[in-house]
């Protein structure tokens, strides 16, 4: 039986759950006696910077934006400097197709974000945090601004929160409709008022980030989990995960969308399986159809087939314990999903029922990447356009087998040859579709199937 967690989501069903009063009631119910507000930040205010980082590392929070980098380790990269201020930048540019979790936190539990920002500021030596919210999310911005105003009025933000002589402030910054600004260095350029083109690394943001100063960029869910981790004790928080021993700790938000009966966002321990996500939480596939495939964590994570089986006969393989089992029964974690040939990404799964045309699905996603490539690097700018056009040509029945094969070559020439991970994020899912659904592509080339009959909506 799958047990839902309710740390971040406890206030979700509460009337006006986004207010400070509701947040504090929920925190008191979860963690005991009232504290005067923001108990975890209050606790952190009495700790040294080194102690906060050491504690944060024990939480084993793997970045929830998709890359899965350990949050505590990232905080540890920050070196105090007398010459330059440090900044915390929270990435809430949620726009990865299939991802719909951060918006729920901003709209329904903004105080978890603000309290997380305060603790992170103490941990990395920053006095200012910027939350970069994509402009389209108007309600999210309003709720965050409201929470910031409440916290400021209570003195939890400002000159000396919790009686410690250490100013902390949080500001909301908006983007203007560019997916690439979810890439951390593009986001920093956008925060500085420029075109959102990714920067070459090094220097990494911890050395020279926002305004040329040391900066930590964390995903919004990552930051929102910090108060829970500090309230429970970070080691205990980590142990909530089924993959705690793999250094992938705590709870997280799971999204499920596409062809399921109950799409939505659910909070559970790390290590839930795709089968549990699709069938227990998502209520199963629409019309009880078979499962064609699932994109596990946002469009940049390679698609998995519904009938895919783990092949890891080598006993030394980390996947050996799931050898011969369905890929749907592997606990979702950063390392397990990578070993299964995909990625956990943002952990919001897009489900496709039998009857969906995978070639049409790929065309839809490649149109997205073609539109959103920032154009800075030639392989990505041209490659995303070529792949999109060739897939369209295949669907129109005008492509040859050579052109189908050329898609592999194009994708492989984008991979690893660009400034940022967008190129890989486009090439990997492209190769995933080509590899997992090769026969469907061939059927269009041979003229056995027609675009007019291709469907994304089933039933």
């Amino acid at each position, binding site marked *: 039986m799958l047990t839902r967690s309710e740390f971040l989501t406890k206030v979700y069903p509460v009337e006006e759950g986004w207010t400070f009063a509701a947040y504090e009631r929920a925190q008191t119910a979860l963690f005991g006696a009232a504290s005067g507000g923001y108990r975890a930040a209050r606790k952190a205010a009495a700790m040294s910077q080194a102690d906060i980082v050491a504690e944060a590392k024990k939480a084993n929070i793997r970045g929830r934006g998709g890359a899965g980098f350990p949050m505590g380790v990232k905080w540890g990269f920050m070196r105090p400097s007398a010459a330059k*201020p440090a900044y915390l930048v929270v990435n809430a540019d*949620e*726009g*990865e*197709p*299939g*991802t*719909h979790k*951060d*918006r729920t936190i901003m709209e329904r539990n903004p105080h978890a974000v603000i309290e997380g920002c305060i603790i992170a500021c103490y941990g990395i030596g920053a006095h200012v945090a910027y939350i970069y919210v*994509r*402009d*389209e*999310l*108007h*309600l999210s911005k309003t709720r965050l601004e409201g929470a910031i105003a409440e916290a400021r009025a209570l003195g939890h933000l400002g000159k000396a929160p919790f009686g410690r002589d250490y100013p902390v402030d949080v*500001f909301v*910054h*908006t*983007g*203007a*409709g*560019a*997916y690439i600004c979810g890439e951390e260095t593009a986001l920093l350029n*956008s*925060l*500085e*008022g*420029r*075109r*959102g*083109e990714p920067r070459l690394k090094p220097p990494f943001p911890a050395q020279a980030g926002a*305004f040329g100063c040391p900066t930590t960029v964390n995903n919004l869910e990552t930051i929102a989990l910090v108060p829970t981790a500090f309230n429970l004790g970070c080691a205990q928080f980590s142990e909530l995960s089924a993959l705690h021993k793999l250094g992938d700790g705590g709870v997280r938000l799971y*999204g*499920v*969308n*596409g*062809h399921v009966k109950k*799409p*939505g*966002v659910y909070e559970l321990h790390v290590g839930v399986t795709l089968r549990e996500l699709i069938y227990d939480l998502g209520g199963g596939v629409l019309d009880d159809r078979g499962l064609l495939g699932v*994109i596990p964590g946002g*469009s940049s994570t390679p698609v998995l087939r519904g009938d895919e089986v783990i092949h890891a006969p080598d006993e030394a393989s980390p996947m050996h314990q799931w050898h011969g089992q369905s890929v749907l029964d592997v606990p979702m974690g950063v390392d397990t999903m990578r070993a299964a040939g995909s990625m956990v990404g943002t952990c*919001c799964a*897009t*489900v*496709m029922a039998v009857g*969906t045309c995978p070639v049409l*699905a790929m065309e*839809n*996603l490649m149109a*997205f990447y073609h*539109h*959103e490539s*920032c154009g800075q690097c030639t392989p990505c700018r041209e490659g995303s356009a070529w792949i999109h056009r060739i897939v369209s040509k295949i669907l129109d029945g005008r492509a040859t087998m050579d052109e189908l094969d050329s898609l592999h070559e194009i994708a492989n020439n984008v991979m690893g040859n660009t400034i940022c991970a967008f190129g890989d994020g486009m090439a990997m899912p492209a190769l995933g579709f080509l590899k997992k659904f090769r026969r469907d592509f061939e059927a269009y080339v041979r003229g056995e199937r027609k675009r007019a009959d291709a469907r*994304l*909506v089933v039933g």
Partner: protein
Amino acid sequence: MTFALTSERERELEALLAKYPTRTAACIPLLHLCQAQHGHIDDEVVEFVAARLEMPPAEVKGAVTFYGLFNQRPSGKHQVWVCKTLPCALRGAGDILKQCEHKLGIHPGETTADGKVTLRTAECLASCGTAPMIQVDGEYFENLTPERVDEILTRLTTS
């Protein structure tokens, strides 16, 4: 006539500038402020932003042309965005778009003859769990059916 902000928006600009260590950082939020007043960003607005933020006009223009939400031409009074990316498409975004085109008599990228509504397609708006969806003047409408879209657009075009 040169562009200037209303006094209320001037105050918002002052508040914006206080948030950042550089003036340049206010570029995108200021462009949003200008667009809210002027409807689109033309060269006069670019000159204004450049002057106020002490930036080269070319850099401001560079930002304007980079970001999809800045209108470089006048657009309708109301903005309708239809999400067409895969999670919405799997749940019927195609029919939602068709309904919008049929109801408004225009295709994506166009504005109705009376100047009231501009229709556009959007890439993923983070509403995949409540798909399909459209955004009208900043407000989300989720879990849509073509019938519901019809109601929303009727209200918009007769208001």
